[in-house]
């Protein structure tokens, strides 16, 4: 038996001992690749290091771990600095746990960073609705829909683009009629002042069989 080269212990140690931006990035990538729940606190800590490369790797790692990372992410939220909070929201958006929905609703509508609004808008469509009790599911989906429709009026094209993607994902899972979403996408497909947003709305309508 050959021992694995990268164990949780050696990867954790490498993160803690990294002495350069590139070294930290490599170490965090290796740790994230393990998809080991024991790395959750360390990956969350990395979100606050002001090292975008390492933060991207840590967010990816947390998304891979998924649901088990959510309660720690939410618990620590109040203690985050602004940058770490933004990364945490991106992780929560990627995981799609319904416990993160309130945070995503607020971030999509109100965060001052466009990359956070963008990730949150995308995440509002990809929430794991099956994990919401059936009695509350329709209301939860309606909350996402309301905010996403509002976010299609964001000043930044990329946030509107993400809202279109969020609405498409949401509409494809709605059991009830998606008329309001279809009307909104039809309007965007001709009236949005950014061609990329128009085109994405057009594609969403095609996928929904509504073009």
């Amino acid at each position: 038996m050959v021992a694995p080269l990268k164990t949780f212990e050696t990867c954790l140690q490498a993160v803690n001992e990294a002495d350069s931006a590139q070294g930290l990035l490599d170490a965090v990538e290796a740790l994230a690749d393990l998809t080991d729940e024991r790395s959750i606190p360390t990956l969350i800590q990395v979100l606050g290091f002001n090292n975008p490369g390492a933060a991207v790797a840590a967010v990816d790692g947390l998304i891979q771990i998924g649901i088990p990372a959510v309660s720690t992410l939410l618990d620590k939220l109040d203690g985050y600095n602004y940058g770490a909070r933004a990364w945490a929201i991106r992780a929560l958006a990627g995981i799609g746990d319904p416990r993160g929905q309130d945070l995503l609703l607020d971030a999509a509508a109100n965060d001052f960073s466009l990359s956070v609004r963008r990730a949150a808008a995308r995440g509002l469509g990809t929430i794991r609705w099956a994990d919401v009790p059936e009695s509350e599911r329709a209301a939860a989906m309606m909350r996402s829909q309301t905010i996403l429709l509002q976010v299609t009026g964001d000043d930044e094209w990329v946030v509107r683009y993400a809202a279109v993607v969020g609405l498409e994902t949401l509409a494809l899972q709605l059991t009830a009629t998606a008329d309001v979403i279809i009307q909104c996408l039809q309007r965007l497909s001709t009236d949005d002042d950014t061609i990329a947003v128009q085109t994405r709305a057009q594609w969403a309508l095609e996928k929904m069989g509504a073009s």
Partner: protein
Amino acid sequence: MPLGFVVFGLLVVSGVPHNPDGQPLTLDQALVNINQTTDPGLRYYAAWWLGKMRVSQPAAIEALLLALEDETDRSPDGGYPLRRNAARALGKIGQGYDSVVPALLGCLACDDYYVRETAAQALESLGVSSAVPVLASLLEGGVAAAVQVEGKPHLVQPYNAILEALGTLGNDDLVATIAPFLDHEVPQVRNAAARAMYQITGDAQYAERLVKVLDHEQLQLRRAALMDLGAVGYLAGAGAIANTLAENSMKLIALKGVLEHQIKVENETAQDICGLSADSRRVMELMDSLL
């Protein structure tokens, strides 16, 4: 403090503009500010504001054209900060005004490197093809003349802006003029030349040079190559753009450029509209994955 208050009061009483604390600038106030010389800071800010807010009115254009001739607002190195802002604003809102083009062409002869740079960018964004001969004349002497100015952080001409403008405005008559800059020692100049060569020839080998830069060890150069590939809408580079080690926001902007270029090409060539092409959908799939 009391003196300052009195002075401020006098300024207000005499009708000289001010920017009330915490109040956003209004159009009326911006036009007052751009037409006064007492406070260079207010005038400088108003020039930027008119462009940013896309105030394409004759009164704004006239005031900005006057600002292009300003002699009063000087930086420590002898530059003309107000002219730079005015040229940039005219690049955004000067479309359709005949007097804007000669004024911007005049700026290409200004002593201030940054005024020349901004004017080249403005002429490019206004699509002024008649600027090509003057822009090309700034490349005279070729690569041998394209050296750093002693004591300054820049070359003798704003080569990036000139090459990019020529790529957008020119045609393949310029190949012999631009090609030598593919081997300039400054990476940014090489990239601008590759971008321009791709635009005027449509030959993929030049865009592939930019794709190679996406792997460069310096983040700044990778970012710049992303913007270049987005600006020229190089479809075959879409996958490489999405895989570049850089911020998702930059990659999304680049892919937006590719997508919109593709849509434009398809609209120009398609006989009838029959839904989105597989290429467009592939680019949007990449964009979706980066949100």
